[in-house]
């Protein structure tokens, strides 16, 4: 999606080149047809258009006219203004941008963790900008999972307890929650013995993978990840990213902030934030390991964005 005020860049054109249908991008309705690759076939409806397969995507989050301003004493700083954005169900959306561009602020605003100064955010038909703190908390527990760069596991608890603490919010069936937690731990490759350890007793990668399990334990609509590999070494980063890819392939919507190109390759859509706007929007298609074409496409996009 391109902001109407912005010029259309080559990167966008590249994006459109791969698209089967591009004109519906700006359709302000809940269900839109967007260009995507056929592998991304988990979306709701597949329709035929001129003999080509197209995917009808469902808007999960729709933000209109967003403004975020930070006030410190008498000075204020506008992070973004008049920002519109739609996030689609099933997408692995990457938000990139220079440091201080407002990537994380935008992501946390969309998740209901932070409040925009102005504008509205509709998340699965609910206008979350109208919610009070407790309503937002209830909303978050049902719809959002968070993965942080600093991991932020509760230090006084084991990895398993961290996960169950979140799980208890949405289900009273403790047995069921424990079963799901164990399955997820298996998915992220954390053995039982490690599950009983504190976050300070495991590697950063293990802790972050436990953080992902915590984020998805309640089957959230979206997992929000804020530079989840920022504090990890390359091995641990790869392991963590593999988990995200696995989740995405199983249909999990993910929004991830990163400034790492390798990480960004895991997404199927890349948004670039600059000057308080969505400066560029690139459809990469779903992640395939060692896909040079995707990498080239992302490189081109980022170059266009001034990366």
């Amino acid at each position, binding site marked *: 999606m391109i902001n109407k005020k912005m010029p259309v860049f080559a990167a966008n054109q590249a994006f459109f080149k791969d698209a089967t249908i591009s004109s519906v991008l700006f359709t302000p309705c809940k269900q839109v047809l967007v260009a995507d690759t056929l592998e991304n076939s988990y979306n709701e409806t597949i329709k035929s258009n001129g003999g080509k397969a197209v995917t009808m995507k469902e808007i999960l989050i729709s933000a209109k006219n967003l403004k975020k301003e930070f006030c410190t004493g008498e000075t204020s700083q506008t992070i973004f203004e008049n920002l519109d954005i739609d996030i689609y169900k099933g997408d692995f959306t990457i938000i990139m941008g220079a440091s201080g561009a407002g990537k994380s602020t935008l992501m*946390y605003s969309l998740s209901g*963790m*932070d*409040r925009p100064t102005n504008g509205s955010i509709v998340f699965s038909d609910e206008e979350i900008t109208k919610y009070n*703190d*407790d309503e937002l*908390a*209830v*909303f*978050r*527990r*049902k719809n*959002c*999972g*968070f993965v*942080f760069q*600093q991991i*932020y*596991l*509760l*230090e*006084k*608890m*084991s990895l*398993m*307890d961290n996960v*169950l*603490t*979140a*799980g*208890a*919010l*949405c289900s*009273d069936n*403790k047995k069921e*929650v*424990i079963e799901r*937690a164990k399955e997820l731990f298996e998915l992220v490759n954390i053995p039982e013995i490690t599950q*009983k350890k*504190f976050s*300070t007793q495991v590697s950063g990668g293990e802790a972050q993978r436990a953080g992902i399990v*915590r984020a998805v334990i*309640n089957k959230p609509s979206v997992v929000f990840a804020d530079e989840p590999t920022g504090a990890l070494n390359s091995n641990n980063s790869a392991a963590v990213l593999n988990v995200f890819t696995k989740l995405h392939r199983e249909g999990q919507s993910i929004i991830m902030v990163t400034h790492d190109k390798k990480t960004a390759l895991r997404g199927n859509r890349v948004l670039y934030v600059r000057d308080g706007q969505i400066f560029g929007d690139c459809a990469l298609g779903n992640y395939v390991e060692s896909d040079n074409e995707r990498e080239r496409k992302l490189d081109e996009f980022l170059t266009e964005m001034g990366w």
Partner: protein
Amino acid sequence: MGKIKSQIMYNLKKDKGSYISFGIVVLITAIMLNLAFVLMFQVDKAYDKKFGELNTASINVTVPKFQNTDTLINDIKALNGVTDAESREAVFAEAVVKDFRATDFSMNTLFYNKDEYRNMNRLDIKEEKAEIAENSIYLPLYVASFGEFGLDDEIVYEIGNTKYTFKVSGVAEEMQYGNYGKGLMGAYLPEKVYEKFANEYSEQTVVEYSIITSGDINALQNDISDLLEEKGIAMITSCDRISTKDTRTMVCNLIILVLSAFAMIILLVSVFLCKFRISNSIEEDMVNMGVLKALGYTGGMIIAGVILPYLMVTVFASMLGVAVSYGILPSLGELLTLQAGFSFGLVFDIKGLICVVTILAVIVAFFTYTAAKRIRKLQPINAIRGNGEGKSAKKNYFPLDETNGKTKMLLVLKQTFSNGKQNILLFGVSFVLTILVAFASTMFYNVIIEPDNFISTLSEEMPQIIVSPNEQYEETVSDELKSNSEIKSILKYTVGTINIEDTPVTIFACEDFGRVSNDLCYLGENPNEKDEIALGSAFEGKYNIGDSIEIQNGDISCSYEVTGFVQSVNYQGNVCEFSLEGYEGLNSEKLVPTLYVYLNNAADTEKIVKEIEDNYGDKIISVMNYQKMTETTQEMYSGITSVIVVVIFILTILIVLFVLYIVIKTLLVQQKQELGIYKAIGYSNKQLMVQMIGSFLPSSVAAVLLSSVLGLIYVPQINQFIFQTIGAIKNNMEVSFVFLMIFALVQITANLIISILLTKPIKKISAYALIKEN
């Protein structure tokens, strides 16, 4: 100092609220301690100064004038240790002061000639009228202030059948008698008034010998007794400097004791608080401390930076507390003057200030150092990496996947066990404070709900009405009253004075101690037979139960067997009990006992008193509404007790507030990130508040309940200790379990409300801000 100044300022700014709370607790401690110290340093000194200024005698004895001899003064002066002696006449009367604090007050009184020259036992006239009336009287300060008599007021002394109305023309301070506790008061009449009065009571005229000694008072008292016995002279009254001072300063000493005890308890709380805060701030500031060490700061410098803010707060708060206490001292001084019977201006005392500041500073320094000394062992690199100590949990309490129960409940339990220090602090503080509340609630119960328990501990036999019949109508009046359906029973009871071992002793004689309502006998039994006696607590140790004692009253001497020991708050244990028959044996004349009247319904007292006055007229000498007197006394104590209970309760709630403030503030700081994580994953403010309160409230609730239940054991011991110091070896104070529980519930409710209010800031914290800050 310069090197750690920035550290001190950083600590002070960072933890403002906690330092303020700590400072307020120290301030309360300092107020109490300084009050205790000023009283301790000044009252005793003021007493001795006044005693010296008025050249008060060490011992005062009175003998009947008709037995006195001209040579006795020289004989007394010749006794070993006597430095000076003088004599004067006075009239001794067992009087009843009417309308004394709206009741009738029985008071042995010595009426003196005010204008007679006195070298010893001088009077300090505090106020007087310029003109003297024909019935003028100068009252001692105690009678005037406690009895609420002002200049020009009328005061009625009832002596036997006669009522004397005097006009108050002056108030005098004297150090000879002082207050009611000695059972003897003075009254001072202008010369002409005295002469007239003494003429009427020539038989009761006594000669008082005032004796100053630099030696052993007890030895001299024995010598005087021996001398009088040798000469066949009876001793009517005897007062010595030591017992008088003890009596007059009893309440003051009690207040010093209570204030010191309370101050120590609160000091204990403040010490808990600063230890708790320091160990938490070490954990919070571990990285900063590591950085400082890496920069070259020594452990000692960092420790000083941690301790000094507490010491500065302690010194400042204790000085402020001392200053505030001087605002309270005048009122306390007035209250004590009322009881002690002499006025003293409590002035600024540098010693008090030094003691308070030093004691508090040393104790706080010691405890803060013990809490902070582990900083020395902190390795900079470990601290910077956050591996110092304590921050990470060592044990995973209640693993959620392995423990049965609701996850949310288990989370509360996890937090409770993970925050052991704060729970120990809250448990300790709540337990200690509940001791105060349990004591206060028991006082409240016994003084306001069941006042008889308190009054009967302090007083002797308590009928509703006391009737003094004329000798010839004693049986008639007694029989007729017995037949009155509204009267439950009549008891013949007499109060008098005799000498035991040359010490004037108040006696209680009763026809049947099995029917008395009092519980004075704390050891052994009351006397039932005519040859039995129960002695006052002052004689315990000298005699044992079963011993025989020879008692002489004038020419009559009888032997009695000691059956038990009785207590008396009013007479310093110088009392004894006889059966009526037994006491009659000591008297040559027939005794006319008073009739103690017990009613079916105490509310009818006023009506029955009126009926007795109307129906018996000349057949009785007097009728006293004792119920009213008891109620007046009770009202006075109720007032004081209510104030004490309210003050203790407010103090407790205040301290709980400050402690909870510090604990919750610490938790909010320590768990800021944790709370942010909880909020991020969807926990609501309400859930987090409940979780936080749930993690510490159980420990304080458990402490309050446990302390309240244990109150059944320790409150009687506290009461025993306190009442014993004022002469009530056995007290009738009951500990009501229900009442302890009611006060415990009030305390728990207050804790809960305070906790809810203090955890409310959780609402203001946004999950995003918490995460962004880290």
